[in-house]
């Protein structure tokens, strides 16, 4: 059984200060990295002889508009079946330079996950073979999951944010 402590120490030894912000929300090892190191990090986890974190569960994006310089976060969830070990990796990006290398070379499943993230958040995955919209129509000229596009009709006055806790 692989422990969070063991993996965290192994990654710190290998990547030094390129991995940081270690956390364990609800027992799931969460850490941050940089976009320069994300591919080597994913590859290291995948090809590690004993850990074998070979399964990419999910890629998604989150936006924090108030976090200047780090408005977008790309979240990777990985899973090692051999040890039943899950890990979450986050990479923060700034809105002005919203690029991150693609993981399609490592995991075939990353293809659509990244297209979806691009579709909804506009995060550009450099080197992606086919970075087009996937669920929305191609003519759409904005990225709808961004917080600047409120869900409700802006002209309505009876639905104020305070009622919804926002």
């Amino acid at each position, binding site marked *: 059984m692989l422990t969070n402590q063991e993996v965290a120490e192994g990654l710190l030894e290998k990547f030094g200060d390129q991995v940081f912000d270690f956390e364990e*929300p*609800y027992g*799931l090892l*969460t850490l941050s990295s940089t976009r320069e190191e994300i591919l080597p990090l994913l590859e290291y986890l995948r090809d590690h002889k004993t850990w074998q974190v*070979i*399964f*990419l*569960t*999910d890629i*998604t994006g*989150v*936006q924090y508009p108030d976090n200047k310089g780090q408005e977008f976060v790309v*979240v990777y*969830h990985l899973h090692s*079946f051999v040890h*039943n070990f*899950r890990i*979450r990796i986050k990479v923060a990006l700034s809105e002005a330079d919203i690029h991150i290398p693609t993981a399609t070379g490592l*995991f*075939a*499943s990353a*293809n*659509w*996950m990244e297209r*979806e993230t691009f579709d*909804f958040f506009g995060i550009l995955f450099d080197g992606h073979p086919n970075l087009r*919209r*996937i*669920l*929305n*129509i191609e003519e759409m000229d904005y990225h*709808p*999951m961004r917080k600047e596009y409120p*869900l*409700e009709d802006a002209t309505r006055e009876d639905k104020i944010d305070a009622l*919804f*806790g*926002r």
Partner: protein
Amino acid sequence: MADIELLPHNVPSQSELPELVEELTTLNLGPTHPATHGIFQNILKMDGEKIVSGEQTIGYIHRAFEKIAERRPFYQITTLTDRMNYCSSPINNMGWHMTVEKLLGIEVPKRAQYIRVIMMELARITDHIICNSILGVDTGAFTGFLYVMQKREEVYEIYEEVCGARLTTNMGRVGGMERDLSSTAIRKINEFIKSFPPVLRELEKLLNRNRIFMDRTINVGPISAERALSYGFTGPNLRAAGVDYDVRVMNPYSSYQDFDFEVPIGQSGDTFDRYMVRNEEMWQSLKIVEQAINNLPEGPYYADAPEFYLPPKQEVYKNMEALIYHFKIVMGEIDAPAGEVYHAVEGGNGELGFYLISDGGRAPYRLHFRRPSFIYYQAYPEMCKGSSLSDAILTMSSLNVIAGELDA
């Protein structure tokens, strides 16, 4: 023999013939084609009957659930999850409840957990019934489909008895079930346990060793375990390729560790193996339902979490505290703690994950659904490359791509 005068005709020599131009045919399979079982399009490049390459267009029924969820109180998101994999909505509902319970730190009583297991396994049976019997229809055996649909109807009657709805169930609540299993529900479940095996055996008799069915499905649309893992396959489709990954076993939730069941796996990951894995899973699900209903623990069917679980209606009329909680919950005025949760359940098609970020507000800050069909459907062009069109249809059918889950 009559004299037939052959008219002179000139056969043009090879050099005089116009040059043959070879070109590929583009075939639009879908968006609305009965064989796609849902609204999604495949643009296939065909060389005669052979598929050279394919490209999918999806998103026809995209309903922006993740965006809508950011404005809704937690309990109102259950209705959104219904509409993802609508062949097994209770699993989606329970998965969502468990995610929220994990965030809130609510421990659900055993009885509620067992009731959930019963409903989830019945849902798995309905899900697999559809996939397998439709696969029969696609190979030309319509009878089996109509026959087993009767049994799905009986499961829907159980849903009706438990939650009042049939297809989009909205079953259970954060913190437990909305009501206890009624005696009618228990009777219907027991009846189903008795009456389902003969029907399933008959479907097996119709298809499992049927020469035509085997010829149509064996070695059709295979995928290796390695490619399946790389493509993010989960659930029956991954198990058919020979990887025994099942969320129920690896990360047991809702007391799955109490039950004795097997995880069937296939070898070659082809259409026949996918069919056989689903078939065996129905038996295992039935076994789990039987164990759960026979060992149903006594006790409450909801957790003691008054801030999140709606109080009984009689209390609301008589008790001030209950009225206040009722009002606050219905108006969505209860703040959830800040936190970040990933919770996965074994859905009909594989690992159905909920990635929930709460900022301490009344609605999620961000909610992402890890939809198994969305992730594995991208392997489809690779799986049907080089096969004929009729085989490609079977491959798609056996992958059990559900449009609602695909597009969310």
